[in-house]
């Protein structure tokens, strides 16, 4: 019995504890990201934002969550019930499982797998299913149009994201996220690969269906997009999934381009601050940019969105793979960065 405990139960329990330790802070961060968004956009519009519930409105996310709990879950007639309810669960759980491979600090990672980048890319490319299933299962024109738009949009931007990830991998020589961060000790990849970093960030904005690329839920033309028919908790799951995806994409950009948990300079006052704090600070900065974009830009027209993805980003990133590959081989960059190769 003791052996059984030692071999099976305890490792399982330990993993569950670690998973909870990752998911809980993310859920809290998601809740307060919605609050931060309203506050920041409020500030940019010279309004106050939510300020009634609790001090400075700090309890607003809890009140919103409670409200969504108490609302009625509506199932439209002629909707496809199983797919209708699987869709929000899928969106939300996909936004969470991807965190398994994100390194928060040196060695602070749930699963340090060899193909970490591919795993992240695979999970983020699955996100489109939640939206498409929601759009189809609702049996409503607006939701369906939203789902179709989102499918086309996410597939388009994934292509250039993939190529940009390849440029980073060429510099590192490994698919492991911890090694990608360690390869940035000399210089963060955002500096040598600056155009790629910008394109990658814009692609992540499109990938998460955020402004100015939020065509799938364009409220002016599609009422509310793929989630029109959802109410109460299923809607909350979509909402949380979208924000969790924003945090995830910021984390991905941080790991690939902003040096993960590494401090900006490897000297004393910066190295006093522990790695995970740097990681969170960088993610927060990117999230601020996400919200800033929402306040600053009008929504793209759909054909412009497609043009940007296929005719601008794809050729540039394709060329970048060739150029970066050539430079890496010609100047033997991988050995300079201390990566294995």
């Amino acid at each position, binding site marked *: 019995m003791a052996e059984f405990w030692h071999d*099976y139960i305890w490792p399982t329990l330990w993993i569950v504890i670690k998973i909870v330790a990752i998911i809980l802070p993310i859920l809290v961060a998601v809740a307060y990201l919605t609050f931060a968004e309203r506050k920041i956009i409020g500030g940019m519009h010279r309004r106050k934002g939510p300020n009634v519930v609790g001090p400075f409105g700090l309890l607003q996310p809890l009140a919103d969550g409670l409200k969504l709990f108490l609302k009625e879950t509506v199932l439209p007639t002629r909707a*496809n019930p199983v*797919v209708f309810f699987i869709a929000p669960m899928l969106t939300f759980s996909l936004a969470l499982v991807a965190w398994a491979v994100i390194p928060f600090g040196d060695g602070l990672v749930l699963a340090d*797998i*060899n*193909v970490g980048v*591919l*795993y992240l*890319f*695979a999970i983020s*490319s*699955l996100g*489109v*299913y939640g939206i*498409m*299933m929601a759009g*189809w299962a609702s049996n409503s024109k607006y939701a*369906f149009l939203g*789902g*179709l738009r989102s*499918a*086309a949009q*996410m*597939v388009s931007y*994934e292509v250039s994201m*993939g190529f940009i990830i390849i440029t980073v991998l060429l510099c590192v020589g490994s*698919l492991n996220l911890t090694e990608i961060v360690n390869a940035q000790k000399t210089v963060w990849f955002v500096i040598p690969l600056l155009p790629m970093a910008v394109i990658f960030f814009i692609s992540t904005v499109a990938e998460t269906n955020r402004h100015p690329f939020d065509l799938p839920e364009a409220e002016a033309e599609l009422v509310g997009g793929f989630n029109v028919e959802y109410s109460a908790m299923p809607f909350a799951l979509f909402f949380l999934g979208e924000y969790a995806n924003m945090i995830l994409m910021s984390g991905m950009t941080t790991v690939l381009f902003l040096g993960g948990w590494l401090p900006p300079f490897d000297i004393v006052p910066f190295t006093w601050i522990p790695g995970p704090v740097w990681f969170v600070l960088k993610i927060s900065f990117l999230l601020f940019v996400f919200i800033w974009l929402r306040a600053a830009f009008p929504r793209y027209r759909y*054909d*412009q969105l497609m*043009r940007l993805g296929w005719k601008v980003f794809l050729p540039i990133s394709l060329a970048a793979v060739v150029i970066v590959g050539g430079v890496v081989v010609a100047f033997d960059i991988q050995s300079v960065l201390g990566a294995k190769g």
Partner: protein
Amino acid sequence: MIEALVFYMFAFITVASGVMVISARNPVHSVLFLILTFFNSAGLFVLLGAEFLAMILVIVYVGAVAVLFLFVVMMLDINFVELRQGFLQYLPLGGVIGLVLLIEIVVALGGMNIDAEAAAGGAAPTPANLTNTEALGQLIYTHYIYLFQAAGLILLVAMIGAIVLTHRRRPGVRRQRIFDQVTRDPKECIELRKIEPGKGI
């Protein structure tokens, strides 16, 4: 023990959802079950230690191919009753094809088990000091680079062919030329005029 359990779970779901792909009444459900099949096969690849193949399977098939497939199937307007009628008609033919494939797999794998010489011709295991990503990369990009390039060229030709066949330039369509818009000189397009009250231009 746990590995065996996980294997049977993935294998069972793969087979079960594979059966559901052809037996589901609604084509969209069929595609969703197909995606589940892909996903569980990726799980089987991970158990085999082929994590690179597993991730590529998810990225390429689940993340791109099946999305477009689902896209098309969702937009089809299908009469389900009519669709079901052909099922029994095509069942014998499909069964025969399935049987042929099964026999071929048995012959190929069974031959390896019986004959040592045939087994030696099979795939070599991944070298122990390499991850399977590196092993695959060496095979494709170092040992078989010319064949790989040839395959790539064929695909490129196929892609260009598909574009040429389907693309037609219709006359009279007004397109947005962003370069023209950006390079326009404000002095030539905007004229400021002083309009006195009570008079037109």
